[in-house]
């Protein structure tokens, strides 16, 4: 498979691009933000995304979806990143779907149709500390009757206050730091003794702190196997990280396109600043970083779509680490250079580059930052 988009994938990109340019350009985010919207996204737009098929991409054809892959999901997410479109696409239609594929039929039958139709969203309750570290999961799920009782606190649950279902990682055995002993649970909105406290983030999105105060769950809330949640969790995180890489790439590309347009027009000392060689070299370097990040992302997506056995899964997982680490580097550079090259106006809320900078920071942190993924790769390589 050549490492570029197929014609079909190119068509999908054009269609997503056209749709989002009209329905959800950066002005859409501004509108939500300035209206002090409490949801974090526009449910009506989300329904339209579902009608566009975005929510069905990763759902198998046999289960009513499009049966497409991570490359296609990434195409849509990249365009969302480029437009800073607020949406539950990444947790719901990408990460959660990947987890549920590894879960029982009860979950798929219940949630896939609702996700496909845009009628349900899902949030992920994984992180407990300030930094992403799923193996460090400490929250307990005690056995209780036929089911489980969950107690503890999850942080950075993106769109956790609006989600219809939360996928929660909790420890049924072992201790923090071990990958064994974690179990994934599907916890529905409105379940007793669960409270979500939404926090508005710098990029105007919301992440909730979710308290579990002895939340009681049936045994069939388990996604996958008890104590063996690491497998569906890994599938979910790989999907989420590849998706976040694509979205980050869109953020980096979107802001860079604006920056390049700006320096082609802006004059200082009577000269277009884009003619200054120092800026040209920095721009060319930034271009290189973004292209390299793009290749790493596409490679990860293709490998995820190509998993046939454990070996190919490992290979895909490593490629995902690379992609998330590299897009973090490239897009962080893109927003920094973006603000600096815009200079004064880049500091104002009137221009978009600051919004890109904020979104980039949230996505860089989501599912682990560059340092986390580089460290994982090093550990896996045995150093």
């Amino acid at each position, binding site marked *: 498979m050549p490492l570029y988009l197929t014609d079909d994938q190119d068509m999908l990109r054009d269609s997503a691009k056209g749709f989002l340019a009209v329905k959800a350009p950066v002005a859409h985010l501004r509108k939500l933000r300035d209206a002090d919207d409490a949801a974090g996204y526009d449910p009506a737009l989300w329904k339209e995304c579902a009608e566009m098929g975005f929510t069905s991409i990763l759902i198998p054809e046999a289960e009513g979806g499009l049966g497409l892959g991570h490359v296609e999901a990434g195409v849509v997410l990249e365009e969302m990143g480029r437009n800073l479109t607020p949406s539950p696409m990444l947790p719901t239609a990408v990460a959660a779907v990947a987890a549920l594929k590894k879960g029982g039929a009860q979950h798929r039958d219940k949630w896939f149709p609702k996700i496909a139709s845009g009628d349900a969203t899902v949030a992920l309750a994984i992180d407990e*500390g300030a930094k992403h570290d799923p193996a460090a999961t400490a929250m307990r799920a005690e056995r209780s009757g036929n089911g489980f009782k969950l107690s503890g606190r999850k942080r950075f649950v993106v769109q956790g206050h609006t989600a219809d279902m939360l996928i929660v990682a909790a420890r049924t055995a072992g201790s923090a730091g071990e990958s064994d002993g974690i179990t994934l649970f599907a916890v529905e909105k409105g379940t007793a003794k669960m409270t979500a406290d939404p926090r508005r983030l710098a*990029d105007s999105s919301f*992440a909730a702190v979710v308290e579990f105060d002895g939340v009681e769950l049936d045994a069939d809330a388990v996604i996958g196997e008890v104590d063996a949640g690491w497998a569906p969790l890994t599938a979910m995180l790989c999907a989420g990280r590849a998706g976040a890489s694509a979205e980050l790439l869109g953020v980096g590309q979107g802001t860079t396109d604006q920056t390049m347009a700006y320096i082609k027009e802006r004059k200082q000392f*009577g000269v277009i600043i884009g003619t200054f060689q120092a800026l040209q070299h920095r721009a060319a370097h930034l271009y290189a970083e973004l292209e390299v990040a793009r290749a790493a992302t596409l490679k990860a997506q293709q490998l995820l779509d190509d998993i046939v056995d454990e070996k190919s899964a490992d290979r895909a997982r490593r490629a995902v680490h690379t992609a998330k680490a590299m897009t973090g580097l490239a897009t962080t550079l893109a927003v920094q250079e973006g603000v600096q090259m815009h200079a004064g106006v880049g500091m104002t809320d009137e221009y978009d580059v*600051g919004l890109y900078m904020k979104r980039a920071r949230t996505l860089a*942190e989501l599912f682990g930052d560059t340092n986390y993924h580089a460290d994982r790769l090093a550990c896996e390589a045995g150093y």
Partner: protein
Amino acid sequence: MPDIDLDSFRAETRAWLEENCPPEMRTPAASDDDQCWGGRKFTFQSEAQKLWLERMAAKGWTVPDWAPEYGGGGLSRAETRVLHQEMARIKARSPLSSFGIWMLGPALLKYGTEDQKREHLPPIARGEIRWCQGYSEPGAGSDLAGLQTRAVSATDEGGDYYIINGQKVWTSYADKADWIFCLVRTDPEAPKHKGISFILFDMDQPGVEPKPIRLISGSSPFCETFFTDARAEKKDLVYEENKGWDVAKYLLGHEREMISGMGHGGGGKTLPQMALDSVGVGAGGRLADPLMRAEIAMFEVRAAAYRAQAERFNDEWKAGRINPAVSSMMKYYGTELNKRRNELAMQAGGTGALEWESEESNGGKSARDWLRSKGNSIEGGTSEIQLNIVAKRVLELPG
């Protein structure tokens, strides 16, 4: 040999301050909003603040080294130093924060006529008139001399005046100031540096509209300010017409002296402490995130080295041993370090540092500081401009 006069001045000053500085004014101001800025629109936050300003102004000690006829205390340099030492001793706040004192005052003292000094300096000293500056324009940032705001001569029953049209940007507190000192173009035909004048006028008139700028970090003291047939009296032209660039250069030089404190990171927690609190300790008692630790360790090396450089720069500056253009290097390096520090603080804070409004995040302080720090390498001359200056005036590279 002890200076007997100075010793007695010190004793008198100490006694006066002890008696006159209200206890509430013996703590540092928490923020810009907590300082006394004076002016027609100013509301004192406390009786103590008002009293402190009045008492100090009465002695001329808001501007201790200005002459008494301009509202100053007429103190010698040595006496002024003693006054500051004694104020520091009891942690007395500055009675008045003022662009009039910091910027316009020195310019008027050097370039103003006697009438201008007598008219404008005393109200500055007493905190009656608050000033703002009108320099940058949307099309003239790094290239300040490219400014386009026009001033056209006119005359009416009120006398000779200028009609001013144009737009300024980055005018700090323009919405709160009473008067503005402003660079305007009086000769559009002349080479750009030679057609600029430095003019003062009242902001309280229909043709002047300041509009606060929202930054990426939130609200800010900065404004855009629009002039539509605004009026400035000819008598308020400082120095000669079309020679305003000399005054501007003098003022910008003044501004650059304030920069060497950059990159130290404000008070509060150190970066390693911040990271330890957020990320915790892992194997071998080291920060649990090993790559973050490496980045912080490398930052700390540069920060410590830069502290030494700041000390060296100040020592050399005081001794008059240094090429003034080196200040551009300091500004460049210090602001880049401060941006880096904020990036690392965001990494260390992790998801918690992303919060924008919550109480735990102190209203998003980390994130807002981080975003605000991006302006450091833009305001007061971009990093690119500083590098140009270093290349040309320190390294003497051609072209």
